[in-house]
């Protein structure tokens, strides 16, 4: 998996030595509606209210991604196969799940999530001399747990997974999936050396209310 910041050419494929144990050509498709962990909505006192202070912290170091298959393994109608023989091409439903410290968080459809309309990369800003690691903007929350991602605030918030490409990819995908059905939301993936001063000063007023930054 690559960091969501990297824009790789879609035609570029990678070949891995291995197979899934099924005969013939196997196509992997994601499930229709990936599941996510149920939350206990009654908790009030454990809600996050911490503000984002600009520090470069990685709170998602225990996140891991796993691939598994469901039983949905069907052959594809292959016009090249001679009559009476079995098709050599099949489709298998495969699930990518996000785990945190071994506990299941959510299943994601990564390609769909990353390619959503409201996920974008932060445009490169000009280099500046502002001190890094400091953000003094009020009203920006800091998100450090998976529960906060599954039940995210309707404000600007920063998901802190600095330098952890797997965490950034996982949080982006899950967040994108959570927000899929909502209107007027935005997810911005930021570079590891973002200057928050410049970002806030250039922040436009017409940006959506729920705006997430993956840092």
């Amino acid at each position, binding site marked *: 998996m690559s960091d969501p910041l990297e824009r790789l050419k879609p035609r570029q494929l990678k070949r891995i030595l291995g*197979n899934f144990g099924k005969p013939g050509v196997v196509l992997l498709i994601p499930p229709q509606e990936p599941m996510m962990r149920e939350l206990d909505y009654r908790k009030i006192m454990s809600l996050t209210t911490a503000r984002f202070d600009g520090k470069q912290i990685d709170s998602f170091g225990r996140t891991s991604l796993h691939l598994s298959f469901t039983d949905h393994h069907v052959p594809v109608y292959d016009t090249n196969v001679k009559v009476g023989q079995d098709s050599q091409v099949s489709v298998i439903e495969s699930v990518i799940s996000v785990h945190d410290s071994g506990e299941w968080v959510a299943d994601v459809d990564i*390609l769909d999530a990353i390619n959503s309309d409201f996920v974008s990369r932060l445009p490169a800003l000009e280099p500046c001399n502002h001190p890094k690691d400091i953000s003094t903007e009020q009203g920006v929350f800091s998100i450090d747990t998976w529960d906060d991602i599954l039940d995210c605030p309707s404000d600007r918030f920063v998901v802190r997974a600095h330098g952890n*490409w797997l965490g950034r990819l996982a949080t982006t995908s899950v967040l994108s999936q959570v927000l899929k059905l909502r209107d007027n939301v935005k997810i911005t993936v930021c570079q590891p050396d973002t200057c928050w001063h410049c970002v806030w000063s250039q922040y436009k007023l017409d940006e959506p209310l729920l705006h997430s930054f993956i840092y």
Partner: protein
Amino acid sequence: MSTIGRLQAALAAATNEVIVTAANLNFDFTLIKCEAPLEYQPLGNMLAAKKKSNAETGSIHVTARRLGALFEGACPTTPNLLKAYGDRISEISTATSQSQPLQYSESIFSTYAGIDGTSIWAAATSSKAALHVHLLGCMIARIFDPAEAVSIWVELVKERQKDIAYRFENGEQLPFSLTAAAAQNPIPKPELAEWDASARAWLRTADEAKKSEYSQLRALLRSVKIKVNEETDVFPSVMKAWKSAVVTMENLVSGQPQAVRDGSTLLALSSWHLYPNIAVFGSQNFEVVLNDSLISPGGTLSIGISPSKIAGETGVFWCLSLAQLRHYGKPVRIERSLQADPSRISFSQFLLCALGVLTALWEIPSNDIHTAMKFLVALATILEGASGAKWLSAVGRAASSYLSAEGEELEMANKLVQYGRRRARDFVPEVEPKFKPKAYFGLGGSNALLKCFKDDEKRIVFLRNKMFEISQKEGRRPTDFLIRFYPSQAQGSANHHPTKSRSEEEDGTVSHDDSTPDGRHWQEVSLDKTDFYSSDSDTEDEVEVIGDTACYATVTQGLFDPGSHSAPPFPLPQKWYGASHHRWICSDEDHESECGGEFHHRLFSQNLKASRTSFTIIERLRENRYDWLCGDLDTAAIFQRRSARPPASPEFSIEDFLSCAEAGLFSVASLIDHVSSDNSPVFVFFKALATVASIYKHIPDARLAIQNFQRPILQSKWHAATFPVAPSRHKMVRRMFKRTLALAIVAYFDSGTADLAPGDMENVMAVSSGDSIYVPSQVRLTGIVAKSQLMMFSL
């Protein structure tokens, strides 16, 4: 089936009498897992976690156990063979793991990545008989296609069960586990398919690791023609071949020389990657020394073959009659052979075959292949970097690799090109004559060649050089030839439609000429009339007016003698007779000048009557008519005087293109225009190759199935999808299209049989085929992760 029923009844009775352990009562053998033999342990350590657990407790373990139990006793004990095989697979898997980059092991595919040793490990943790069954699986997977292999297994299982039941019927003493296995339900087809697929994937990986031995073996196979055995029914044939192979290999590994008359041993040693020295006795006697460390010295295989009366394909053949191949229908008789040829090739080899296809499409004889390669390299060099010509770069690289190959590499390259030539009909089917491809895009002929020059000066130099030899050799007079050319900036107007914006000083005439080569009719227009285009023009086919932009130049240098018929073409004062070239250009000034060693004179068009393919110079009372000889009528052409006999015949060939290309005489834009205007399938073919190349350049270690050359590439679904119906504005849609196209292409070429439409693959995030998983880069694995972060993930 009544025999099976009676067997089951007998078993039920037996269990009451015999004291059996709890494990034996449970006919599902998954509980039992043995320790794998020592030689196989390194493989176990190297298997990915999921694969290992599947092999030890999953469905494939059940299959291995059941097959092992069913075929118990079919082969004698072979301790040395199993030991050597274990050492060999451990060696291969260690080598392969080391060559695979570490980064992939930390990705989500890590549980599936790595060598497919599942069936080996499942067999190793089951029983010795299961290992024998695995060896048989490799032999079958080596020579038969997947569908055929599965049907062979189904039949084998069925027949073996029947065979055991029959023996039990007749009172033979059989081990309990054997009869129990025979009484069970037949092993389901998907599980057998999984068993076969695992063996197949292992073979692919092992072939890559043992490339050099494999190629030596292939050299041997090219000179033998031998059958596996004479039986055609599946069960007897397979059992016989299996037993014979196992016993022979056991003896060979132990150091005893063996002599065989059938091909089962050859098939076996190719499938098991064990390589004893082989001595072949036939019409020629030779020995292949492979120096395998796992074979004890003295283990030499001698094969005696009688010379085959039928010349033809060589190799090891197996001919079987498969009853289970179709769900419905008569048994299918198939013959498969262990070919000397690779069934999988790398992408650069694929490109060489494609070049062979190209030479066949252009109908270039095999002698000229070298020239054709030089042409492609020259064209690619000229067009390098030009927009609109990126599709040529992959082909150009392949052609230059051909030119720089030598020795064995060159031999291989030639074979690949020849293979492509033979498959051209299948790969790119023939088209109607009007779309017939022109060799070298037509650049071997003078028309197209001259169109692509940078400017008229270069054209004139070229034409002069061309005629130089002819005029020297044949002693032509300098006045016999003239070049007519259109100066570069006027070329836009030197075409066919009447230019109505003429000004009055033009007084070029059009002569009425019945006998022009292309049969056009010209309307005679008189001088000085203002009704330049008379009303009659509507009734003619076309009115073509040769503009006064045409200029004339001499072809050869020479003296002009006044008076005789070698007078200068146009009236010329005596002082200009000299040894240099002359030109007559249209200019307003009335002076003559010298430029670049040539004398420029003003063209007086009163003496000239010109049409498209000929012109006549009228001088005093004499007319000299010049007809088109060679060249391009729109840019520059040589005209020969009618009275000069016999007509000269300069030959244009692709060598002219090559020498001009080297001298840098071509204009990139006009070359691109010319090549793109080719309406034969060749241009489309180039583009398809470029599409495939753009994907395979990121995966250099991928292999393509060679049977792709038997399918027409331009009729594949992915190719049909590359013609843009309507270019999408939305960036996401475009990216997704590129991803689905890439996945469809790798599925097509890797399997050699699948043909998927990119439109059906919108949701697909990865494709697995054989021993490879193809993943789009967006979901790809990166090695940029620092070491410390790797440790965090494994928590």
